[in-house]
């Protein structure tokens, strides 16, 4: 049995090496050092940490991870991509696959580059949306981040075609740990769609540790989609965090299908008036899967809005955690915040821990939250069977129907259809 401290040392030696080799940029070296110091001190969160109460990192800590890739594997992009028509950056085994990527003919004012090629440009935006002290994973990512995508959209530019980031673990290197940092900056009134996909074939082992930092200037609008469909042996720990200036909008859609352990932290800081965030989530888990979604929305100024809907379908012995926190600051009058978590339990063995939270310090607000847990409606099931549908198809249809309103909230029809197809594949068919 491995001690937690050994697990830490494994990672720190890699960080030492990464800092010394390469990286001419002083900002980066300093940041990594800070991350390392923090990680060495705090380590991974444990059960005593309220934010990790229902998610055990025991299995993760028992695993040894590889950080070096002799030769990145080859993947067929069409197996995993969501969209046929998108600017695409493909990262395989932690390394950019330039042949598979297509970043040509970007319009003026739009930058989409590998992080490793944008060190200087990205530096001012690093660790602005996350706090090193908050969790060991922020520190871990800071000391080890080695790749990712850097996106910058200039003021007033409205990008029509989505940007797709495809991150695949080919499985060539066993137990590969990949640490990624994505930076998305939208200047004033800019608009873009960004799709993050994390994938690996069944049986592939490893860890994806990723942080996406989003910076939205006034009136900027980002449609942000994340689809995680990694192997059931994989670990996935991710953060998406945004700072939002006045009248900016962040539409975040987070779909979690794979991994043995998947943890998402989604955070929006509503810093300017009339800013809005949508947090839309769907998780489908089965077998021994564990998924944990933690969200936080800070309404810091008056007249901001948030709308959060997370839905989950649990089968087998799976375990899901939802913890959503909405903070309404004292000055944040006229806040309009809505939060809901709904779960469909398909088996007796599954478990959901749902904890919607609101902390309200302003007195003139409209806030609502709720949580629901249910099962397949037996009378609907009988109705469908009495119309000739097999029990399996009827159950699948009702399960899909449960998830339908989350999918309907996806704005772009092409992305909505693509997500629908992926989810339909996950449902049992007759």
């Amino acid at each position, binding site marked *: 049995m491995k001690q937690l401290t050994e697990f830490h040392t494994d990672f720190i030696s890699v960080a030492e090496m990464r800092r010394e080799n390469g990286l001419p940029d002083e900002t980066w070296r300093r940041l990594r050092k800070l991350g390392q110091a923090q990680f060495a001190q705090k380590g991974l969160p444990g059960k005593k940490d309220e934010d990790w109460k229902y998610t055990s990192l025991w299995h993760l800590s028992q695993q040894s991870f590889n950080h070096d890739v002799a030769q990145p594997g080859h993947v067929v992009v069409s197996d995993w991509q969501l969209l046929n028509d998108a600017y695409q950056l493909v990262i395989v085994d932690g390394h950019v696959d330039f042949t598979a990527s297509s970043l040509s003919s970007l319009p003026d004012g739009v930058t989409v580059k590998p992080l490793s090629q944008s060190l200087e440009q990205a530096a001012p935006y690093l660790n602005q949306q996350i706090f090193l002290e908050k969790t060991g994973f922020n520190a871990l990512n800071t000391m080890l981040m080695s790749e990712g995508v850097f996106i910058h959209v200039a003021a007033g530019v409205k990008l029509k075609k989505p940007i797709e980031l495809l991150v695949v673990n080919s499985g060539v290197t066993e137990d590969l740990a990949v640490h990624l940092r994505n930076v998305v900056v939208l200047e004033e009134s800019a608009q873009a769609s960004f799709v993050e996909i994390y994938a690996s074939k069944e049986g592939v082992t490893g860890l994806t540790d990723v942080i996406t930092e989003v910076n939205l200037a006034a009136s900027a609008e980002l449609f942000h989609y994340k689809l995680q469909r990694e192997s059931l042996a994989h670990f996935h720990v991710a953060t998406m965090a945004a700072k939002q200036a006045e009248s900016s909008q962040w539409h975040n859609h987070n779909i979690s299908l794979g991994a043995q352990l998947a943890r998402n932290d989604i955070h929006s800081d509503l810093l300017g008036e009339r800013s809005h965030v949508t947090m839309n989530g769907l998780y489908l888990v089965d077998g021994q899967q564990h998924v944990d979604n933690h969200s936080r929305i800070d309404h810091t100024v008056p007249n901001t809005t948030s709308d959060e809907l997370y839905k989950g379908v649990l089968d087998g012995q799976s375990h899901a955690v939802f913890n959503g926190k909405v903070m309404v600051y004292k000055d944040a009058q006229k806040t309009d915040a809505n939060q809901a978590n709904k779960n469909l339990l398909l088996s007796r063995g599954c478990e959901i821990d749902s904890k919607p939270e609101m902390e309200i310090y302003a007195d003139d607000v409209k806030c609502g939250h709720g949580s629901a847990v249910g099962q397949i409606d037996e009378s609907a099931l009988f*109705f469908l*069977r*009495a*119309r000739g*549908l*097999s029990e399996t*198809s009827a159950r699948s*249809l009702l399960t899909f*129907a449960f998830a339908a*309103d989350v999918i309907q909230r996806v704005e772009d029809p092409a992305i909505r259809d693509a997500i629908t197809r992926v989810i339909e594949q996950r449902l049992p068919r007759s």
Partner: protein
Amino acid sequence: MKMLEIKNLHATIDGKEILRGIDLTVNAGEVHAIMGPNGAGKSTLSNVLAGREGYDITKGEIIYKDENLLELAPEERAQRGVFLAFQYPVEIPGVSNIYLLKAALNAVRKYQGLDEVDAIDFLTLVRSKMELVKMDEQFLHRSVNEGFSGGEKKRNEILQMALLEPTLAILDETDSGLDIDALKVVAEGVNALRGEDRSIVMITHYQRLLDYIVPDFVHVLSEGRIVKSGDKNLAKELEKSGYSWAKEPVGLPA
């Protein structure tokens, strides 16, 4: 040809006997009305015919077109042409009406060894059936029965029936909650389906429906048994005398 034969059917729910020896034969082309007071077992009978779980069949059998109906799952019955129009049609948020109609039709076609229906043919077919029940096309794209009025739900049931063209249709209290105009529309839909190779069993509390869908036979169900059978005039008598007599073993009207 015998379409349906129910022999000495006994059914219990939670140990309570609801059906206590039902005998009924329905031939192809016939329309039968089963009437009775509340609690007589009318809904239990329709549910047992369609295969809803929760009922124990303690005695008797149901033969449908030479097959033992009780051995078939609900979907197998539907695929073989048994259709139950629900008394309380279920709302299914997130499933569009058109999806349900198509899935149901394809399930029946698959059993019949036919290919899935072509998208354009399907739409043409559905439109013609919607005309029959005077339903607007917008209902196709709404979630099944969600936010439908009582009358719209019932019409939606008849739409499904018209599309699936069952050989045995069981209408469970299809008239309940309908105003007279909606009742006429529903009746027209049902009458359009009448034919030599189809049978209809209407289960109803009131005689009103039978003014529009005229049955060949009327049966009175009381306390789990058919206590009297006759032609359409029996329904008229019932309207005058009510059901109170039916609960008494003696003193049946002449």
